[in-house]
C-alpha cells in the first residue's frame, strides 16, 4: 500500500475481493468500523453479502434484498460474511486477501445452488479451461 490516505468510499467500497488463488470472493458491500487504542476510528472488517448490500442501498429495494438474504441461510443465523481487515494483503484495482476462500464461509445462495441445481447437472465438476 502507498502512503496515499485510504478513502473508504473511493478505495474500498464496491471493489472486488479476490482470494490468494484468484477466486472471486465478493464485493466490499459494507465496512465495519472499530476503535483503536488511542480512540481513533479504524476499519475493522469488510462485510460481504446481500444483507450488507441491501442495508446500504436502502429503500424498498434494499429492504427486499436484505430480507431475501436473511431467508437464505444454512446456519440459522444469517450474517454477512465478515473478513477482518488484517486479512487484506493489497488494495488496488481489487482487494487481495492473504487467505484462500475455502477458509471463509461459502455464501448460502452459492451453496444451495451448488447442491441443488448446478451440482446435479452432468459435467458440473469438469475442469474449466
Amino acid at each position, binding site marked *: 500500500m502507498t502512503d496515499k490516505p485510504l478513502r473508504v468510499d473511493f478505495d474500498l467500497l464496491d471493489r472486488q475481493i479476490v482470494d490468494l488463488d484468484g477466486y472471486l470472493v465478493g464485493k466490499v458491500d459494507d465496512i465495519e468500523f472499530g476503535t483503536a487504542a488511542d480512540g481513533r476510528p479504524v476499519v475493522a472488517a469488510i462485510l460481504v453479502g446481500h444483507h450488507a448490500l441491501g442495508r446500504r442501498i436502502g429503500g424498498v429495494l434494499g429492504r427486499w434484498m436484505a430480507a431475501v438474504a436473511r431467508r437464505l441461510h444454512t446456519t440459522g443465523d444469517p450474517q454477512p460474511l465478515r473478513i477482518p481487515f488484517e486479512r487484506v494483503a493489497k488494495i488496488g484495482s481489487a482487494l487481495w486477501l492473504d487467505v484462500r476462500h475455502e477458509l471463509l464461509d461459502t455464501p448460502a445462495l452459492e451453496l444451495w445452488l451448488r447442491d441443488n441445481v448446478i451440482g446435479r447437472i452432468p459435467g*458440473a465438476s469438469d475442469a474449466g479451461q
Partner: protein
Amino acid sequence: MKRFLAVTLGILTAIGGFVDIGDLVANGETGARFGMRLAWVVVVGVLGICLYAEMSGRVAAVSGRPVFDLVRERLGARVALANLAGSYLVTLLTLSAEIGGVALAIQLATSVHYLLWVPIAAFVLWVVLWKVKFEPMERVFGLAGLALVVFVVALIALDPPWGQLGDQIANPVPPATEDWATYGFFAVALFAAAMTPYEVFFFSSGGVEEKWTRRDLVISRVNVFIGFPLGGVLSLAVMGCAAVVYEPLGVHVDTLGQTALPVAMAVGKLGLVVVILGFFAATFGAALETGLSAGYTVAQYFGWQWGKLVRPRQAARFHTVVLISVLLGVALLLTTADPIAITEYSLVFSAVALPLTYLPILIVANDRDYLGDHVNSPFTNVLGVTYLVIILVVAVAAVPLMIVTGMGS
C-alpha cells in the same frame, strides 16, 4: 495460425453487435427505405465502439477487471443497480431474439416453422454454454460468422450503380418518401446497435477469460481494430444489397428471407447456402455472447465467481443466471412474440444502460491505480467525451422517437 486466430474474440463480439438477428433485418429494412443515406451512422458507431472497446480491453488486460466491475466500483451500488437492470433487460431481450433468430435461420433451410426449432436451438445453446471451453467456442462461431462476407461478394456481383450509392452516402438526408422523424429513429437504432452495452461486457470479460495480461495489449487492440470494422463492413454490405435490390422497387423488408434474397439473386444457390450458414453462425454467436453477458453482468455486480475458467460447481450462481436467462428467453419466444420486434424494444433499455456503461469506462481508463502508464492519451479523452455526448443525446432521443414514429413504421 495461433496469432491469426487470436482475433476471433473481436470478430465474435462484433458479429453480436452489428449483424445479429435484429440488425440483419433492420439493416435490410434501412437499405430498402433509405438507400445508403444512413451509412454514415454505421461508420460513427464503429468508431465509437472501437474507442470504448479498446479502453475496456486495456483495463481488462492491465488490471484484470471486466467492465461491470468498473460500473459498480465507480457509480456505487445504487446507480450501478439501475444500470444492471437496464443492461440485463437489453441483454435478455437480445438473447431471446437471437434464439428466435437461430430458429428462423433453420426455418429458412428446412421450411419447418421456427417455433418448433426454438426449444431445440435453446437446448443446444445451453449445452455449448455449459460444456464448451471459451476459446474453441469463440473460434468456431467467430470464424463461421465470416460466412456473411457473402453479402460483400453479392453486392459486388450485383454491379450496382456505384455513383448513385455514393451520392446517397454523401447526402445524408431522408429520401422524399420518408420524414426526419423516421430517419432519426433509424439513425438512433443503428447507432445503439453498434454501441450495444453487452459488446463491452463480453469483450472485456472474454479478455479476462483468455487471461490477458499487460503483454496482450497488442492482441486486445488488434481484436478491436479488426473485429469491429469488419462487423461494420458486413452491416453496410447487408444494407447495400437491400438498397440496390429493394429501394428502386419500394419494397418493404421485414423478414430474414428478404434480407437473404439479394444474395441468392447475385450468387445463386451456393450463395444462399452460405448466407443461411452465416445467419445461423451469426445468430448463434450472438446468442452465446448475450447468454454469457447476462451471467457476467449479474455476477460482476454482486462480485460472484463467474466465467468458464472454473468448474461450473465453483460458479454455481453464475451458471444459474445463465440457465435462467436462456429459459426466460425461450418463454418469451413461445408467447409467439416476434424475434425481430423484440430487439427493437430493447432500445428502450439501452437509454439507461448506454451512458451508465460508457461513463465508468472512460473514468477508469484515466485511473493510474488501474492502468499505471497505460492511461488514456488526451486525444483519446477528447474523442471519449465527444462520444459520451453523442451517447447521451441518443439515449435521450431513443424513446420519444420510438413513440413519435411508432417504431419507425
